[in-house]
């Protein structure tokens, strides 16, 4: 496993996470010895960059906010240019427990993209209402498209193998929800093998998931739109080796 760690880059997109990022970086370093951690500061206005750096992470600072998709593109590019095989995305708010990373990496031996799924038995993370229904619908459609059973398609806890890293370095979607939903569609449309592994998830340190019906409806609409466009995009938008 230690050799897999050496070839693996942990990418943590961070937007105004100065309070939690250092602790998460230290936790990753303690639980996954020898692994490289890249924090991508997504145009934060607080001390995210210096906090992460003082905790010993590599830090790439974006000059302005690009969203999770843009931050992850930096991570995938950095991985390619520094010959890392795998990229594991972890949230910088402490929601993802780094001790599940070895499980993801084991699964990566036979798959290209491994999702760490909440609701899959482990942990005590729950979501109710329209947001939950949206997740169920998304999971059903995306499971069919990727020919594997997925329950948590919007999870940001995911590991990408060499083929997925090559694909995503060029074509990771930067739109809202693109980084989760569309990335899955791109992966399955380009023939990557997708798997899901149950991970335990901690409740978010700060802030609660929104239950405002209008925001839920907006989320549903945008998710649906992202999904439809992901399926009707021309193949050139996810062919590796094309133009960037």
């Amino acid at each position, binding site marked *: 496993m230690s050799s897999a760690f050496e070839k693996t880059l942990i990418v943590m997109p961070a937007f105004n996470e100065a309070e939690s990022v250092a602790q998460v970086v230290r936790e990753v370093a303690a639980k996954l010895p020898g692994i490289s951690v890249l924090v991508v500061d997504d145009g934060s206005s607080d001390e995210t960059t210096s906090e992460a750096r003082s905790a010993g992470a*590599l830090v790439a600072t974006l000059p302005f906010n*690009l969203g999770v998709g*843009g931050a992850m593109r930096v991570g995938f590019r950095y991985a390619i240019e520094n010959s890392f095989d795998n990229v594991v995305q972890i949230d910088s708010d402490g929601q993802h427990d780094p001790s599940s990373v070895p499980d993801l990496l084991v699964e990566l031996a036979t798959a290209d993209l491994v999702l760490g799924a909440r609701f899959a038995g482990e942990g005590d993370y729950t979501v109710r209402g329209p947001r939950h229904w949206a997740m169920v619908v998304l999971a059903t459609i995306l499971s069919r498209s990727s020919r594997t059973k997925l329950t948590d398609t919007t999870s940001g806890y995911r590991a990408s193998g060499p083929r997925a890293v090559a694909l995503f370095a060029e074509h990771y979607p930067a739109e809202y929800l693109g980084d989760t939903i569309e990335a899955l569609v791109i992966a399955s449309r380009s023939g990557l093998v997708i798997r899901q592994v149950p991970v335990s998830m901690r409740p978010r340190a700060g802030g609660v998931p929104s239950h405002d019906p209008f925001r839920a409806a907006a989320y549903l609409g945008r998710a649906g739109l992202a999904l439809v466009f992901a399926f009707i995009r021309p193949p050139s938008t996810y062919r590796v080796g094309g133009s960037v």
Partner: protein
Amino acid sequence: MSITSYIFGIVSAALILVVVVELLRRRHLRERHAIWWMIAGVLALIAGVFPATLVWVSQLVGVEVPTNLVFFVSIAILFLVGLQHSSELTQLESKTRTLAERVAIIELNARERESRAERDED
């Protein structure tokens, strides 16, 4: 149609063309963005100088009131220009985003190289 409104139509159309050409001349406008405004100006000039052409085209496409054809074509051109701008804006945003991503990586590489050099000196 009175002679004043005839002249007014021609002067307006000519003014559009003068402004577009002047902007092009000073490089304040690129050809690819000017094309729709040029088309609009030329059409307005033709319709201004020869109102009969407008009546003829209206009959050709089955528009009863020629002015309505003017409104339709104007709105269509404005719509297309607006659409073109949205599309160009999207492309610009994606270029800016790519630049921002490159800058972040280059900065990180430079910093790493610096700290490695410092360590070598110690």
